[in-house]
């Protein structure tokens, strides 16, 4: 009967921190959630890599080194690619365009999504009907397919890729934001603001938007993943600006130079892993974000932290762990 297993308790937090946490929970998620923390670390490293590319890997990434497909060596720590370019430089510099496209897409898509979602949700009626019809259309039309078709009409370039990706990637979040706006609009604090005499503009910016920061941040991260993945895929299909250095074009040239058949893993692996790492890191951060919108997700983790994994039994019943008093 007497199971005196220890319960590891969490330390209570000081007041100011708690206020901050309530206001910007998504900032705290990262600290608290192990996966999100690792994710943030990874993505930060990748962003720093992009920002400090000239410092980390000095020199022109397109420079031809006279040797192609050399395995990693002292001069080329990640070898050279089929075009005789230094893989390390390509990987480091490639972060710039890929991350720019990812974040750019996310920023643009979320602006569209937020505007459409909030306008539709707030003004409702015919505006809502029309905007949602468009949104649903975009939702159902396959993104990458539309993207491929669009790429036929647009001039290949970073800007157009961002534009096309944002164009195909906003709809899902617009719908979520609209739903949230609709529910927030019914909240009494919005009604209270109306009664207090606030203007629609002020209500949207002061009352509704601040409450959707979580959603917008989550959507931003999700769209970034989409942007990175889809731009890489487009590059692989040769549909982006191919003279640019990005992880996608690196992979394209590796494949184009038959690096696989040459056994030149170093031509594929660095950029491929970077894409995967970025996507994984962002996915993990979003797992953390999920816990804000769904606090139930947190509960079990706390219990596990305190009791260890053993509390789970075949039949689910509240665990009994006596505490010494």
């Amino acid at each position, binding site marked *: *009967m007497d199971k005196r297993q220890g*319960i590891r*308790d*969490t*330390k*209570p*937090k000081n007041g100011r921190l*708690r206020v901050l946490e309530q206001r910007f929970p998504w900032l705290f998620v990262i600290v*608290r959630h192990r996966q999100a923390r690792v994710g943030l670390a990874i993505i930060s490293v990748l962003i720093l890599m992009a920002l400090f590319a000239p410092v980390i890997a000095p020199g022109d990434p397109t420079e031809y080194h006279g040797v192609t497909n050399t395995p990693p060596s002292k001069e080329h720590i990640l070898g050279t690619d089929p075009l005789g370019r230094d893989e390390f430089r390509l990987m480091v510099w490639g972060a710039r365009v890929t991350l720019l496209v990812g974040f750019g897409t996310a920023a643009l898509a979320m602006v569209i999504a937020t505007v459409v979602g909030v306008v539709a949700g707030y003004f409702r009626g015919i505006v809502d009907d029309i905007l949602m019809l468009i949104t649903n259309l975009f939702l159902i039309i396959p993104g990458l397919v539309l993207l491929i078709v669009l790429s036929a009409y647009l001039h290949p370039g970073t800007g157009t890729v961002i534009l096309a990706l944002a164009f195909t990637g906003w709809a899902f979040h617009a719908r979520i934001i609209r739903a949230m706006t609709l529910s927030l609009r019914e909240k009494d604090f919005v009604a209270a603001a109306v009664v207090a005499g606030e203007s629609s503009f002020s209500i949207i910016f002061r009352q509704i938007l601040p409450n959707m920061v979580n959603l917008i941040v989550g959507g931003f991260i999700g769209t970034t993943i989409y942007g990175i993945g889809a731009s890489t895929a487009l590059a692989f299909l040769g549909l982006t600006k191919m003279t640019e250095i990005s992880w996608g074009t690196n992979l394209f040239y590796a494949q184009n130079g038959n690096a696989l058949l040459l056994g030149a893993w170093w031509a594929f692996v660095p950029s491929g892993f970077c894409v995967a790492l970025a996507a994984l890191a962002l996915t993990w951060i979003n797992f953390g974000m999920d816990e804000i919108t769904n606090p139930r997700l*947190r*509960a*079990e983790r*706390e*219990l596990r*932290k*305190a*009791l260890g994994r053993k*509390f789970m*039994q*075949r*039949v689910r*019943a*509240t*665990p*009994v*762990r*006596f*505490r010494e*008093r």
Partner: protein
Amino acid sequence: MDDRSTPLIDIRNLYVEYLTNRGPVRAVENVSFAVKSGEVFGLAGESACGKSTIAHAILRVLRPPAVITGGRILYKGVDVLGLERTSPEEYRNKVLGGVTRKGIGSSAELIERYRWAEVSMVFQSAMNSLNPVVKIVHQITDVLMRHLDIDRAEARRRAEELMEIVNIDKRRLEAYPHQLSGGMRQRIVIAIALALRPSLMIMDEPTTALDVVVQKDILQQIDQLKREYGFSILFITHDLSLMVEFSDRIAIMYAGEIVELAPANEILNNPLHPYTKGLLASFPSITGERVKMSGIPGAPPNLLNPPAGCRFRERCAEWTGVDIPRSPQLQEVIPDHFAACECKYGRADHA
């Protein structure tokens, strides 16, 4: 505590905590009470004082991050908190007596057998406790077929019977929950709770979401059934008027602890604990003179970091200024009437 008859369920020194990232929320602290056969035992107290937590603990269906950190819950002499380690024989002897139910396998399964067959529960959110995508009939028959050795047809027949008992047209068995009104759903849940004729039925604020008229109607029906079948009821509400109307004995909870325990009339006519008095002063009357009422100033303490000693002290009008280092213990101030107020009634010498 009680020597006249062995209680049906005996809760002793129960502790329950929710382990949150801000530290443990001590939702139930050292709570002891017993429910006798055939009695309606009321658990009253304002919101968040731990009533539902106790109810869920009895069935061990508390959700993470809840942990039971102390005490015993003896149901017919078997400790529910140790069912995993109870032998099936002991359980059969003590709990089942002569009653035949579906066979019991391992100890691990005992908790499933104990649930509903022995103690059933009408949840606080009864409206939401029906599965929205499953027809009513299946939600009734699945519990029958799980615990009784009967076939589908028989289960269905019994389901129809149950519908009759709670006064709903049996054609409604084919309905989905959303097709029924709140009152009907509530009655269905009660029907399910009655399905196995358990010895104890926990009713956690079964009527708060309902209109007063419907509420009254349902409570009368339950009362009727209780007298017919003779089960005990653990009745939970924050509405003292309703509680007094419905229960035999009442425990008043405050901030995770029981502060007063007495027969219903005693509570109404002779409240001992200042909190109980305050509570009674929070319900204006529908009859008589309009008198100014005070309520209780302040707010209940945060259970994350409850103050040491008496938890009501901050709000108490009768506080004498004495600091008591640990929580006041329940003591029998007058026969059958317990109160936990050490600064008024002195220190008890037993727990």
